[in-house]
């Protein structure tokens, strides 16, 4: 992709289909919603978790509980970064003990966010198992982590950025692949991964 270019990978309709497919796959894999709960990773994992939960509710007549986890306290790069991400709320309004937790994030990239989220979750209780659902898997893993449910697999260059925009946080639904203008040492920051 030319530098500075933007490509739309998903629009509102494809995001809706992906969420719906993930919900079906969760149900297929776990058979029942009993003991199932979803936990979204701040920021954009949270609305995605709620959307999947609502979809599951429409299919099964019962909306599974959802929570939010903030991973900033569990980062492995705190002393290396100058920029401190603002700490957001961790809010898990149910007992993790014995639950099957579906962890939800927007983009799976290096796997470090997921590692931090796993550490955060086990500090809060002992779930029976944890599964991972992501809207986009863009590759370039740095840790042995894989997703159980993937909305879309996207081959990317390490310098690309995948920007997920959701109605709840950004006003509209879309996923963009952004190739930054040629610049040295560019790594993604904040909401784009």
């Amino acid at each position: 992709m030319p530098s500075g270019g933007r490509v739309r990978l998903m629009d509102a309709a494809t995001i809706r289909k992906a969420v719906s497919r993930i919900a079906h796959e969760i149900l297929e894999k776990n058979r029942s919603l009993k003991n199932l709960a979803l936990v979204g990773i701040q920021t954009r994992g949270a609305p995605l978790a709620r959307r999947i939960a609502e979809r599951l509710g429409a299919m099964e007549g019962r909306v599974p509980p959802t929570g939010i986890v903030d991973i900033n306290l569990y980062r492995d790069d705190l002393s290396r970064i100058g920029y401190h991400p603002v700490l957001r709320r961790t809010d898990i309004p149910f007992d993790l003990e014995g639950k099957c937790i579906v962890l939800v994030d927007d983009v799976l990239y290096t796997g470090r966010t997921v590692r931090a989220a796993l550490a955060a979750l086990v500090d809060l209780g002992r779930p029976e198992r944890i599964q991972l659902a992501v809207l986009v898997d863009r590759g370039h893993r740095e840790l042995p982590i894989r997703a159980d449910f993937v909305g879309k697999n996207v081959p990317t260059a390490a310098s690309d950025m995948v920007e997920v925009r959701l109605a709840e946080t950004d006003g509209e639904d879309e996923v963009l692949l952004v190739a930054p203008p040629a610049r040295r040492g560019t790594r993604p920051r904040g909401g784009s991964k």
Partner: protein
Amino acid sequence: MKLRSRHLLGIAALEPDEIFLILDTAEGFAEVSTREIKKVPTLRGKTVVNFFVEPSTRTRSSFELAEKRLSADSLNFSPGASSFVKGETLLDTARNLDAMAPDYIVLRHSEAGAPHFLARHCRSSIINAGDGSHEHPTQALLDAFTMRQRKGHLAGLRVAIVGDILHSRVARSNILLLNRVGARVTVCGPPTLLPIEVERMGCAVTHWIDEALQGADVVMMLRVQLERMQSGFFPTLREYARLYGLDARRLKLAAPDAIVMHPGPMNRGIEIMGDVADGGSSVILEQVTNGVAVRMAVLYLLAGGTEGEATA
């Protein structure tokens, strides 16, 4: 964004956006203290020296708890147990501490400017936990956090600070902070206990508590230090209590939903009466709880190295 300095020496050096960054970050940390396992690994491997040259129980325990909940290793260093009493200068002590390479030094000292001095000679991040009658920034931050939690905002709040303003680092840091975020401060105390030209700090001044309380959203009572009576700043405790003590009858002059604060430790029956201290308007214990969250936020925001970017 991040804090511009790697030290927290006083409110005077903070911009409003930095104050709000600390308060917003503290919101996230308040949750950690409500968990069953009240510990996160954020500052694992970092060392904090709590260097308290002046006695303090509350502030030191609050910092210690904040450090422990963030998984930092802490070392307490107080004058009774140190070579400070053996005549070592502050600079030599500081250099010795620095040679042990802690990541933070939390300093409480009876001399104004001691943390600023340390900051010039140490590689660690210095956090001022109270220097003489100069500043006590984390106290002002936790007070602001508590006000915002109760009132929803800081701008436009009418805050009355009553008592020994002259010797109070809590008052000074609070005035500086509240002015920066657009609150309106009135200070009140006997003329002998108000600094000369205190109005130049940007606050209203009165010697009459009834006037200060009129319509106040927040009433902050300061501790009277009993040794001030011996040095002749006011004649008797009885007179002080009558003229400047807060009781339920006086509190009625404030706004109906006013909150009452005190940095502790309280002299019941002198600057604050039991009916107010234990009444529904008192947020004194919330201040203590919030202190831990605010100090966790400060330690978190001062962590971290060179300007770079976050990857996750």
